[in-house]
């Protein structure tokens, strides 16, 4: 199979209208808002050195905040704000997806626009400004007829820079629930689908180049005072906006939204749920790549309708519990706690995706390690790798305390790279996931947990409060409950990491479930 005959290109192309349209929409809205705020601020600040310094300083600081963090920060901020407006004015709004992405990106676009507008206006020959006064212009007329036209090339250069930044950074809006070209990149990274990653990068780069060139037409047009160029540029911008708005106008939006976190298993399960809903005649779409902390809130506020989470994750992250209870008790407590928040726990899927300490089988046998208790004696000379959250989760503290574990070094890694890293001996142990197909692929050993320090992580289907009494939804998804065992899920995950699309794996998974039912 050559690079170009790879079927995943076709798969990627299929998503393009949706991803690109959303990407352009959020970018243009952010840019428009950024301009709407920055331009008047720049005009206000040009004769006020102190305000100017404060504004440029603020914009520079915003610029130093990593894009992903800025986007992530806007989500809880808006969530709190929405709660306030709901309490005070009786209406809330969705703090998910478009709004946080647009606001963060707008903030991001401010620096180049502010700086260039101020620079452009200050760079005008004072003799010209005095001439404008002397021929009888009011300050407003001077600004409109003389200063703005003369500063326009510099201002447009700033707008171009802002546009390129915003379009590039918009790929990071996927985890806060805004569909963008970043969906390719996040999904591709998780499922080791490099075609997707490449496609997402190329698409956003091409988009940035096109927008940059269209704006360049306006910039050079303003510089050379060519009406033709400016007109062509404005037509280009108008076409872009029209193209971005078209699909959203034609698409009816009353579909069920299935959420997925940022790893392969979640993509597969979301695809499976979506397929089941569609098979039952319910319109359904997937919202992929949502941050682990964003997704539950999104369900609670009804931005997504259904998704799969894990009991241990909810226990620690949503209930903020650090104690560890036997499985049955924990599930009962969880169900009660979720019910208080009007979130329905539809049921478990049948497998568990728990954290587990994993190391190469050969090495473990050589050292005589079979359980975490055995590992404790060797840990001081070993290094461990885990995903981005494990080492800050309460169960990690519980686990290390229970067994007296102290490792020589801890590293954080993209989860999909951990298994290869431990197999290659780059780290000695990893905190992996029990349902991961790579465990079998690399012949790794999952160490026993005799003290049951790691809580259960049963995969469970959660429904949004507004779907509490939706029997069509329940009926469509109930056949999946208890039907996916750990071996099946591992194989599904392995398929996903060896170049099969999530949708294909979901189809395979459904066939497998049916075959098992038939055999029974």
């Amino acid at each position, binding site marked *: 199979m050559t690079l170009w005959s790879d079927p995943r290109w076709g798969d990627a192309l299929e998503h393009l209208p949706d991803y690109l349209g959303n990407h352009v929409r959020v970018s243009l809205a952010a840019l428009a808002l950024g301009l709407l705020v920055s331009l008047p601020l720049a005009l206000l600040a040009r004769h006020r050195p102190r305000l100017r310094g404060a504004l440029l300083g603020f914009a520079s600081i915003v610029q130093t905040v990593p894009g992903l963090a800025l986007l992530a920060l806007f989500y809880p901020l808006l969530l709190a704000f929405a709660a306030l407006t709901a309490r005070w004015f009786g209406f809330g709004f969705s703090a998910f997806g478009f709004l946080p992405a647009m606001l963060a990106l707008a903030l991001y676009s401010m620096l180049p626009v502010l700086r260039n507008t101020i620079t452009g206006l200050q760079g005008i020959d004072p*003799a*010209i400004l*005095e*001439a*404008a*006064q*002397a*021929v*009888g*212009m*009011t300050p407003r*007329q001077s600004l409109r*007829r*003389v200063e703005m*036209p*003369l500063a326009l090339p510099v201002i447009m250069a700033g707008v171009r820079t802002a546009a390129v930044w915003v379009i590039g950074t918009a790929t990071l809006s996927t985890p806060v629930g805004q569909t963008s070209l970043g969906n390719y990149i996040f999904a591709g990274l998780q499922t080791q689908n490099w075609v997707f990653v490449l496609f997402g990068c190329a698409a956003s780069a091409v988009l940035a180049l096109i927008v940059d060139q269209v704006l360049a037409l306006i910039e050079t047009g303003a510089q050379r*005072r060519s009406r033709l160029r400016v007109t062509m540029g404005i037509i280009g911008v108008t076409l872009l906006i029209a193209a971005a708005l078209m699909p959203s106008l034609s698409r009816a939006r009353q579909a069920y939204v299935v959420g997925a976190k940022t790893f392969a298993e979640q993509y597969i399960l979301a695809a499976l749920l979506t397929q089941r809903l569609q098979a039952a005649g319910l319109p359904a779409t997937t919202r992929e790549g949502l941050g682990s902390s964003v997704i539950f809130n999104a369900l609670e506020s009804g931005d997504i309708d259904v998704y799969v989470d894990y009991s241990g994750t909810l226990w620690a992250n949503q209930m903020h519990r650090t104690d560890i209870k036997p499985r049955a008790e924990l599930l009962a407590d969880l169900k009660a706690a979720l019910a208080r928040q009007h979130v329905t726990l539809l049921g478990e899927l049948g497998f568990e995706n728990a954290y587990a300490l994993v190391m190469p089988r050969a090495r473990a046998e050589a050292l005589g390690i079979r359980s975490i208790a055995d590992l404790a004696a060797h840990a001081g000379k070993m290094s461990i790798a885990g995903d981005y959250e494990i080492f800050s989760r309460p169960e990690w503290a519980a686990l290390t305390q229970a067994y007296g574990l102290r490792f020589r070094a801890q590293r954080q890694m993209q989860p999909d790279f951990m298994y290869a890293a431990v197999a290659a001996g780059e780290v000695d142990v990893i905190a992996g996931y029990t349902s991961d197909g790579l465990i079998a692929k690399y012949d790794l050993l999952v160490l026993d947990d005799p003290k049951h320090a790691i809580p259960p992580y049963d995969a469970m289907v959660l429904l949004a409060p507004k779907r509490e009494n939706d029997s069509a939804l329940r009926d469509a998804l109930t056949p999946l409950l208890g039907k996916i065992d750990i071996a099946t899920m591992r194989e599904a995950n392995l398929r996903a990491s060896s170049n099969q699309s999530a949708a294909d794996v979901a189809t395979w998974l459904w066939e497998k479930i049916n075959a098992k039912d038939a055999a029974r």
Partner: protein
Amino acid sequence: MSVTSPLIAFEHVRKHFDGGRGVPPVLAVDDVSFAVASGEFLAIVGASGSGKTTLLRLANRLIAPDSGRITINGADIADLDAIALRRSIGTVFQGGGLFPHMSVADNIGITPKLLGWPPAQIAARVDELMALVRLDPASHRDRLPSQLSGGQRQRVSVARALAARPRIVLMDEPFGALDPLTRDALGEDYRRLHRELGLTTIMITHDMAEAVLLADRIAVMREGRIVAQGTAAELASVDDADVDALLQTPRRQADRLRELLPRNAAS
């Protein structure tokens, strides 16, 4: 020339500028009084830094005096609307001061446009003015200032100053940066316009020869003060070393020219 009540009068006008950190304030205009009669052409001559440009900026309220009064037709300009005042006065800047992004026609028509004249009337006025300052409207109307020579730019600047039919024209070193031939031609052309249109003109210059040739009356400025004023002949009798030195230059030039350029080769 019959002396009636003056059109423009400065009465004990004083203006200083803050010098910034560590720099003492500068008294740019120090107790200056003078009057310009309607139809008169006054030249203000002085070295750079003598405060003569400040006088012009005071006259159209680009800046306000610290003390003293400036009147036009007897009315204190501090009581007038600054915007309306500036629209009623024509100003010609050193180097032209044209708007680089506007065509020649748009530059000339700017004040009428600000005053809300109908476009057809503005267009007719622009053509009329271009003819008046000897620029071919057809070939120059749509050019940008950057596509003109220095002399042409200054002609546009004069046309712009005259566009809204002002009675008063203020000129700041209008012909200073031009080559001698262009300068002479433009000076002569302006002098003609001044007379034909019945203008009242104040011209700033550092060139006494230009002042003597164009103006009815000359005021000499030094360190913010007017040290002498009068016709060229009157200045010649003033007992002031600086005024004398200023007049020596054109005199010497005239003598040398007469010597070197005899009108009749036979004599």
